[in-house]
């Protein structure tokens, strides 16, 4: 009973109009585009074996690309397209969110539609095509009156498969900025909020089921020439679209969009920023779960208005610098560099969230390890785990070089699972984050970096170019600058890692403001 009395169900429900609406819109748009491309292709190639084989091979290859990767690929592709379009044609469009998600999902929907379309059309008894000619049908009449009706059941099966795939895969469009039911799942995974994960899975499954059934109704209507069935199905789909459009129409489009990357601290901070803007009377919403490489581009393009990044990350990834400077100097230099792109570095929040090599305190003491230099002698028999990007970041190369680290195994993990993994001895060392509350919880220790191979990672507030002169925004945010120290952020992160009602990003953000807001 207490499971359903959990207030997080209510919180999840409050996001539903927004998440579901966006999910339905991007899925149906993708499906419509996919059908608009695939069905004519299936029809055009039905009597041409060579292009048909090539087409099916191509669609199969697309299908083997994992959904998440396909979605991720479309972002840089469109970013390039957008810059070319702006330069050559003076047309600007957003490479963020809806467009890349829709295009990738449309591509994803093509295989089942093409394959079933071609199978259905080629499975027709040639004698019937001959009979159609014999009674005086033109090629077009043969297609419309004989081939398509006879291929319909097989084609519809393909369309229904595509619909279910697209609706399922659309949950993965969250990291490229498309709000979807995946927002529940990504946020839930990152903040260990299983209520959200369950809610997201259930909602997308129900949606897929509903659309499948409605398409089934249309199919039965077409097959049995029942206007009632086909009409009901079509009305159902239309009602679904309409229902998802209504709640978003009233919303002001001019609101500030706060971005957040894919980990708990970012969810908490984006909620905090959003609350501050709303408290200042500005309309604001959070766009969470954005990929680390997507988010900076989104800010630069103005798709989001502000977010929190970390100085060392931008230093390495955007400025491509490998040298290391003291905290304040690095931020100052970064500020100047970002200003060239018209991006405002408003200031530091106060804490640093640096990468650190972390291991159980007991084991470190037993082995006499206090610094990374001490660790180097033991690495040949040790394994290390890091998040999905750590091992490809320049910091890792710098660390290995500075200390001569040679681990015998390295593994990638979901950040929130790393700490438990190192505490249980699953791995020996992890590349953790200094602001993470789990370090204290699991009695771990972050090893010193005497050679300063890891750059500083001050949490910094960034504003989009279009907000460079926005004094109201700056005024609303300035009370946060320098206010969040490492201990406070660790505690906030620890709270966010809990699996109860007080651990939702919104609840933790409120707690955090309560803690730092008082003078």
């Amino acid at each position, binding site marked *: 009973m207490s499971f359903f009395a959990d207030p997080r169900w209510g919180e999840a429900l409050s996001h539903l109009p927004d998440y579901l609406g966006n999910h339905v819109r991007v899925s149906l748009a993708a499906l419509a585009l996919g059908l608009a491309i695939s069905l004519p292709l299936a029809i055009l190639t039905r009597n041409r074996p060579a292009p048909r084989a090539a087409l099916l091979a191509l669609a199969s290859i697309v299908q083997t690309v994992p959904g998440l990767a396909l979605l991720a690929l479309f972002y840089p592709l469109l970013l390039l397209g957008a810059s070319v379009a702006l330069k050559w044609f003076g047309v600007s469009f957003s490479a963020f969110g809806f467009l890349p998600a829709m295009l990738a999902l449309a591509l994803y929907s093509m295989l089942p539609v093409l394959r079933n379309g071609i199978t259905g059309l080629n499975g027709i008894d040639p*004698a*019937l095509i*001959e*009979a*159609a*000619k*014999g*009674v*005086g*049908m*033109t090629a077009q*009449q043969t297609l419309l*009156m*004989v081939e398509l*009706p*006879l291929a319909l059941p097989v084609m519809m099966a393909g369309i229904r498969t595509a619909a279910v795939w697209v609706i399922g895969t659309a949950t993965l469009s969250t990291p490229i900025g498309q709000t979807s039911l995946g927002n529940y799942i990504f946020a839930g995974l990152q903040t260990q909020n299983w209520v959200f994960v369950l809610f997201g899975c259930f909602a997308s499954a129900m949606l897929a089921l509903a659309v499948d059934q409605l398409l089934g109704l249309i199919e039965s209507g077409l097959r049995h020439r029942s206007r009632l069935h086909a009409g009901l199905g079509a009305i159902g789909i239309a009602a679904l679209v309409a229902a998802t459009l209504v709640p978003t129409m009233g919303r002001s489009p001019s609101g500030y969009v706060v971005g957040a990357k894919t980990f708990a601290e970012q969810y908490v901070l984006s909620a905090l920023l959003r609350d501050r803007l709303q408290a200042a009377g500005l309309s604001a919403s959070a766009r969470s779960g954005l990929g680390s490489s997507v988010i900076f581009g989104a800010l630069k393009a103005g798709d989001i208005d502000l977010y929190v990044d970390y100085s060392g990350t931008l230093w390495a990834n955007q400025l491509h610098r490998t040298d290391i400077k003291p905290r304040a100097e690095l931020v100052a230099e970064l500020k100047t560099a970002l200003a060239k792109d018209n991006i405002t570095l408003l200031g530091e929040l106060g804490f640093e969230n640096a990468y650190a090599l972390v291991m159980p305190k007991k084991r470190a003491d037993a082995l006499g390890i206090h610094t990374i230099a001490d660790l180097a002698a033991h690495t040949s028999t040790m394994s290390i785990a890091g998040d999905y990007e750590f091992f490809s970041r320049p910091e890792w190369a710098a660390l290995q070089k500075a200390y001569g680290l040679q681990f015998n195994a390295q593994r990638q993990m979901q950040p929130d699972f790393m700490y438990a993994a190192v505490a249980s001895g699953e791995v020996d060392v992890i590349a953790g984050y200094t602001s993470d509350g789990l370090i204290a919880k699991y009695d771990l220790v972050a090893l010193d970096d005497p050679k300063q191979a890891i750059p500083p990672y001050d949490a910094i507030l960034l504003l989009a170019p279009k907000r460079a002169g926005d004094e109201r925004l700056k005024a609303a945010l300035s009370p946060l600058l320098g206010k969040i120290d490492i201990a406070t952020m660790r505690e906030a992160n620890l709270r966010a890692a809990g699996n109860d009602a007080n651990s939702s990003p919104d609840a933790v953000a409120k707690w955090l403001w309560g803690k730092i807001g008082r003078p």
Partner: protein
Amino acid sequence: MPSRPMIGYAHVTKSYGALRAVDDVSLDIAEGEFLAIVGGSGSGKTTLLRLANRLIEADGGTITVEGEDIKNIDPVTLRRRIGYVFQSGGLFPHLSVADNIGITPKLLGEPAANIAERVDELIELVQLDGTAHRDRLPETLSGGQRQRVGVARALAAKPRIMLMDEPFGALDPLTRDALGDDYGSLHRRLGLTTVMITHDMTEAILLADRIAVMRGGQLLAQGTPMELSKSSDAYVLELLRTPRRQVERLNLLLSRDGAA
């Protein structure tokens, strides 16, 4: 022979690669005539039939329909003018009996009410049961009923010419006889010109005014059964003798059984 045949083939050829499916065939079919084309499989009889409504295009020679060179007639228009009955019915499985029958008038853009009236007329003409069969799907009919629908569909646009490709070949003997007889009287009553392919010599002799014998793409002989029986060609004589030989063997067997 009248000066203008209903269908006229003059030195018509059609090849598939090295295979000469129809080899220099000249054949006239007069108005009101019932012509049967007989021959073994691969003799070119189906190709010859389909050349007439341009389901297959000839390589050489000239084909005329009602005096007009069919090269000058749009194939779709031509086919709507000529009734065609397919070997296994060729009915559209997703359309009801009525919609199958009314398809050609519908393609010609006739009003729905006229089509419905015509369909009722045709259902009666081919001796189907209007109330029982009209709205059924072809798969629920017997083979004989399906072929009756096929005949009705071919007749729907009131063609003057009927082309039939072994229309009754797949039916049981009793049904085949009944359908053959019924069609024969329709042919006469409606004043049709019919070209029918059959591999059953008895059927050909019983129904047709004239028989054309095809072999290896060539027209071996043509004429009334009587004329053909005087042919000097061994194959033609052999073909023509089959019905009588069968009857003789049958009688022999039956009388022996009766004696025992």
